[in-house]
C-alpha cells in the first residue's frame, strides 16, 4: 500500500490522479473517471496550493480503499504505471513500462497494451495524461486506457502519439500471449499458445500446465502442449522431459517447429541434440514433399492468372486472327472500372464494399466490350487480312488508351482494396493457400466454362465459328459477318475487362498494368494452339507450373528466360501449338 501511495505523489502524477474523482457505481466497487480537461488546467494553481492537504487525504483514502477492495488498488497501481508512458522518452523506456505493466499479471493491461501495439495510445500535451485515441474525422476521441470509456475529444495537435516500433510490438505481443492464456475466446488462446511457442521461456511452464489442465478444446490443448514442450526445451528440466518435448515438437512438423529445433540443436548436447537432429531431418523430408505440392499450387495459381489474361485474346487472336496489341489495355480498363466502382462505394455506400467486385464485373465487361466494339468498328475492320498493319494500329491504340487513362486518373497507382473474403490465407497441412489466389482460380475456370458454353452451345457461338471457318460461305448462308466480327471482338475485349477486375486484386492498378500481361498472353495462346480454347487452358496451366518449378532453382529472371527458350523450341517442333486445329479452316 505504501508503494502505491508513493507512486501517487510522484511529481506530475499527483495532479493527474487527484483531478479525477472517485465514484461508487456499485457497492464495493469504485470507478475512476477523469474530469473535463478545461477544468483541470484552470484549477491547476489552486490545486498546487492545497496539494499537501490533498496528498494526505489521498493517502488515507487510498489506504482505506486498498483495505476495502484490493482490485481497485491494483487499478490505481496500473494507472500509475500507465502514466509513466508519458515520460518515456525512447523505445527502451517504453518497453520498460510495458514490462512493468505485464509484471502486475493483471489482465486489465490488455486494453492499453493492445492500443499501444496498434499505435493508438496518446499523451495529452496539456496534462501528460495517457489515453487511447480513436481518430474520428479531424479530431481524436479519447478513451480511458483501462475502462475504455469515452473521456473527451482532442485535436490532433493537442496530443502526442506514443511511438512504437517492431521490437516493441513484438514485446507487447509476447507479453499479451501469456496474459490471454485464460481468455474465453478459443482463438485468443490459440494465438497465445502460438506466441508462447515462438518465444519459449522456462517461466511459461507453470502457467501452461495450469492452462492445459483446464483446457476443454482438444485442438487448443495440443497447441498448448506444444508450447509447453518448447518452453521445457529452454528450461533446466531433466533430459527425459526434453526428449519427450523434442518428440512432441517434431510431430508438429511445420516451419516454426523446424526453427525451434534448429536453435535447440545448436544449444544442446548429447541425446537431446541427437533427437533434435533426427527430428529436423524428419521434418525436412516432409517439408520437401509439401514444397513440391506448394510449387504445383503456385503453378496452378499463376496458370489461372495467365488463363484470365489470355482467354480474351484466345477469342480475338485465336478465333478471329486479329493481332490485338491493345488487349492488355482492355485488362487495364477493367481494373480501372473496379477502382471507380470502389471509389463510389467507399464514398457513398461503405456497407457494400464486400460486394464491390461483384458489382464491378458487369460494368468492367461493358466498358471493355464497348471500347473493343469502337476499336473494331473504327480501326480493325479496315485491316482484316493485313496482320502487320493491324499490329501497328492496335499498338497505337494501346498507347492512346494508356495515355488517356494517365491523363484522367493520374500516373500513380490507384488503390483497389481486397474485400474481406479475399484477404488472408488458410493452411492445408504445411501449404499456405491465399484466398485471393483461390478465388481467382475459381473465377478463371468459371469464365472459361461460360465462354466454352457460349462458343459451342449458342447460336451466336455457332455463327462466330462459322465466320471464322469460312467467311464467304457464312455470308452466303445469310450471316451478317461484319456484325459477328464486331461482337466477337467486343466479347473478347469484355472478357479481358473482367480479367482486369480479378487482376486488380493481385497487381497494381496503374496505366502500365496491361503491358505486363500482353507478352504472356500471346505466349499462352500461341503455345496452346491458335483458335482452340482448350489449348489456352492447358497452355496457361502448364506454363504456370513449369515456371513455378523452375523459379526456386533458376531464380525468377532465368526461369522466365528458360520458359521462353522452351516455347521457341516447342514452336519449332509444332508450329501450331499444343492443340492444332485440323482441316481447311486453318488457312481461312
Amino acid at each position, binding site marked *: 500500500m505504501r508503494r502505491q501511495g508513493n507512486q501517487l505523489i510522484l511529481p506530475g502524477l499527483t495532479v493527474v490522479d487527484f483531478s479525477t474523482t472517485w465514484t461508487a457505481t456499485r457497492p464495493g466497487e469504485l470507478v475512476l473517471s477523469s474530469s473535463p480537461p478545461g477544468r483541470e488546467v484552470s484549477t491547476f494553481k489552486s490545486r498546487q496550493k492545497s496539494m499537501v492537504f490533498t496528498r494526505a487525504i489521498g493517502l488515507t483514502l487510498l489506504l482505506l480503499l486498498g483495505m476495502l477492495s484490493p482490485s481497485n488498488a491494483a487499478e490505481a497501481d496500473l494507472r500509475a504505471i500507465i502514466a509513466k508512458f508519458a515520460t518515456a522518452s525512447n*523505445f*527502451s523506456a517504453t518497453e520498460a513500462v510495458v514490462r512493468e505493466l505485464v509484471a502486475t499479471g493483471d489482465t486489465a493491461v490488455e486494453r492499453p497494451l493492445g492500443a499501444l501495439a496498434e*499505435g493508438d495510445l496518446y499523451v495529452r500535451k496539456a496534462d501528460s495524461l495517457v489515453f487511447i485515441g480513436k481518430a474520428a474525422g479531424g479530431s481524436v476521441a479519447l478513451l480511458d486506457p483501462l475502462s475504455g470509456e469515452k473521456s473527451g475529444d482532442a485535436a490532433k495537435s493537442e496530443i502526442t502519439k506514443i*511511438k512504437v*516500433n*517492431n*521490437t516493441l*510490438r*513484438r514485446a507487447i*505481443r509476447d507479453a499479451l500471449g501469456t496474459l490471454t492464456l485464460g481468455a474465453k475466446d478459443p482463438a485468443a488462446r490459440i494465438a497465445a499458445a502460438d506466441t508462447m511457442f515462438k518465444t519459449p521461456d522456462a517461466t511459461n511452464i507453470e502457467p501452461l500446465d495450469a492452462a492445459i489442465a483446464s483446457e476443454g478444446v482438444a485442438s487448443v490443448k495440443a497447441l498448448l502442449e506444444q508450447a509447453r514442450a518448447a518452453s521445457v526445451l529452454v528450461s533446466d528440466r531433466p533430459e527425459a522431459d526434453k526428449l519427450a518435448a523434442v518428440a512432441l515438437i517434431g510431430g508438429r512438423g511445420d*516451419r*516454426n517447429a*523446424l*526453427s*525451434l529445433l*534448429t*536453435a535447440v540443436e545448436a544449444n544442446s548436447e548429447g541425446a537431446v541434440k541427437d533427437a533434435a537432429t533426427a527430428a529436423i531431418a524428419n521434418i525436412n523430408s516432409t517439408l520437401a514433399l509439401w514444397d513440391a505440392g*506448394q*510449387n504445383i499450387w*503456385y503453378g496452378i*495459381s*499463376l496458370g489461372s*492468372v495467365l488463363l484470365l489474361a489470355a482467354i480474351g485474346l484466345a477469342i480475338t487472336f485465336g478465333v478471329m486472327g486479329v493481332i490485338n496489341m491493345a488487349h492488355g489495355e482492355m485488362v487495364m480498363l477493367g481494373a480501372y472500372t473496379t477502382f471507380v466502382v470502389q471509389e463510389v462505394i467507399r464514398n457513398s455506400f461503405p456497407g457494400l464494399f464486400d460486394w464491390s467486385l461483384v458489382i464491378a464485373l458487369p460494368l468492367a465487361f461493358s466498358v471493355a466490350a464497348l471500347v473493343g466494339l469502337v476499336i473494331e468498328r473504327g480501326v480493325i475492320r479496315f485491316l482484316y487480312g493485313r496482320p502487320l498493319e493491324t499490329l501497328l494500329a492496335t499498338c497505337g491504340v494501346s*498507347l492512346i488508351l*494508356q*495515355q488517356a487513362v*494517365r491523363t484522367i486518373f*493520374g*500516373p*500513380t*497507382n*490507384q*488503390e*483497389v*482494396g*481486397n474485400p474481406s473474403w479475399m*484477404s*488472408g*490465407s488458410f493452411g492445408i497441412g504445411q501449404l*499456405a493457400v*491465399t*484466398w*485471393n*489466389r483461390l478465388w481467382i482460380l475459381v473465377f478463371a475456370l468459371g469464365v472459361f466454362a461460360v465462354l466454352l458454353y457460349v462458343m459451342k452451345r449458342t447460336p451466336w457461338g455457332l455463327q462466330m465459328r462459322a465466320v471464322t471457318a469460312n467467311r464467304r460461305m457464312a455470308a452466303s448462308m445469310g450471316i451478317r459477318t461484319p456484325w459477328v466480327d464486331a461482337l466477337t471482338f467486343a466479347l473478347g475485349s469484355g472478357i479481358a475487362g473482367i480479367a482486369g477486375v480479378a487482376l486488380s486484386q*493481385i*497487381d*497494381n*492498378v*496503374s*496505366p*502500365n498494368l496491361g*503491358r*505486363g500481361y500482353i507478352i504472356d498472353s500471346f505466349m499462352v495462346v500461341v503455345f496452346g494452339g491458335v483458335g482452340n480454347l482448350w489449348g489456352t487452358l492447358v497452355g496457361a496451366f502448364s506454363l504456370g507450373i513449369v515456371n*513455378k518449378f523452375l*523459379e*526456386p532453382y533458376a*531464380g*525468377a*529472371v532465368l526461369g*522466365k528466360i528458360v520458359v521462353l527458350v522452351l516455347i521457341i523450341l516447342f514452336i519449332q517442333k509444332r508450329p501450331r501449338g499444343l492443340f492444332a486445329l485440323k482441316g481447311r479452316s486453318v488457312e481461312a
Partner: protein
Amino acid sequence: MRGSFSTITKMLSAGAVTAGLMMSFPARAADDTIKVGILHSLSGTMAISETTLKDAMLMLIDEQNAKGGLLGKKLEGVVVDPASNWPLFAEKARELISKDKVAAVFGCWTSVSRKSVLPVFSELDNILFYPVQYEGEESERNVFYTGAAPNQQAIPAVDYLMSEDGGSVKRWVLEGTDYVYPRTTNKILEAYLKAKGVAAEDIMVNYTPFGFSDWQTEVSAIKKFGSAGKKTAVVSTVNGDANVPFYKELGNQGIKAEDIPVMAFSVGEEELAGLDTAPLVGHLAAWNYFQSIDTPANAKFIADWHKFIKNDKRTTNDPMEAHYVGFNMWVKAVEKAGTTDPDKVIDAVIGVSVPNLTGGYSTMMPNHHITKPVLIGEIQADGQFETVSQTPGLVMGDEWSDYLADSKDLISDWRAPLSCGNFNVATGKCGGKGTN
C-alpha cells in the same frame, strides 16, 4: 518501302527545321527569362514516378517567380517528355541544351537514363541535378547528385536492423529488381555485412524481373529462409510497379513486420498510395525525407504542393525534397555567381547550404553530393511513415563505396586544383575505375 521511308524522313526533318525556326524566335524575343529544363518521363513505365517530379519542379519555379525571379529575370520551365525511353533521354537533353538554351536541367530517375545523358552534359557543358537515390560509384563534373548515395540510405538502414532497436537481425535476404541499382547496392551491402561478421550462408540474394507480379515463390522462400532460428530481415531494392504485388503477397501470406521486417529503399509514400497498408504496419523504409516529418518548412511545402496540384490527397516524397534542395542550391549558386553560365555555377554551387525539409541544412560537397539526415520509418496504417530512427547528424554522400575493392581508394573533389571525379589516393592519379 525505301522510297516512302526516305520521303517520310525528309518530311520529318523539314518539320523539325520549321519547328526549330519557329522556336528560336520567341526564345530570342524573351531574353528576360532564364530557362530551366525539366527532363522527366511523362509517359511509359516511369511516368508513374517521374510525372510528380515534373509537377514539383514547376511548382518550385512558380514560387521562385513569385519571389521576384532570379537575377531580375523570370524563370521558365521547359518540359520535355523522354517517354521512359533511355536513348530518347539523351536526345531530349541535347534538345533542351542546344535548342532551348536552358541554364540547368533537373531530371532523370533511373540510373540507366542518367548514364545515357552523361555524355551529352559533358559535351555541351551544362548542369544536371539528379534527385533520386542511386548506387553511387560515379561523380561527374556536370552532375549534382541530390538523392542519397548508398551510405546515406542502405548502410544506415542495415545498421538500424542490426541494432537492438531494429531487432538485432542476424540473417539477411537481399531482394531486388534485376538492374544496376539493386545489383550494385546489394554488392556493397553484401561486402558490408560480411565485414560485420555475417556468414555467407546467412545472406540470400535474389533478383526478379521488372514489373514482376507473381511473388508466391519468392515470399515463401523468404519465409523458409526466415525459419532457421535466427532473426531475419529482408532488404528490398524492388523497384516501382513490382512493389504492390510484393507487399500484397507478404500481407496475404501473413509475414508480419514483427517477425520478418522488410526494409525498402524504393518504396515511398507514392508507392504506398496504391495499397491498403493495414497488413503492412511496421515494415520499414529508409529515406532522407518523409511526408510525416513535423517541421514548419515541411508543413508549408505540403500545403503549397496540395494547392499547386489542386488535390489534397497527393503525397510528397523523398525525390521531391531532393529537387526542392537541389533547385534552391542552384538558385543560390546563380545568385552567388551573378550569372547562369554553367561553368561559373558549377564552381559556385560547391559549399552552398540551403534549408532542407527535415529541419536542418543541406550542403553541396566538393564531390557533388549533398549532406542529408538519414531517417528510418515504419509504415503506418494511413499509408504514411513514422520515423523510428534518425542519424544524430547529417551524413555526407560517399560516391565511391569504401566496401568495394574497386572503389575504396577513389575520392572525388571537383575544386581546383584537383578537379577530379575519380582520384586514386593509392596511385596518386586521376582516372581510377569504379565498379560500374
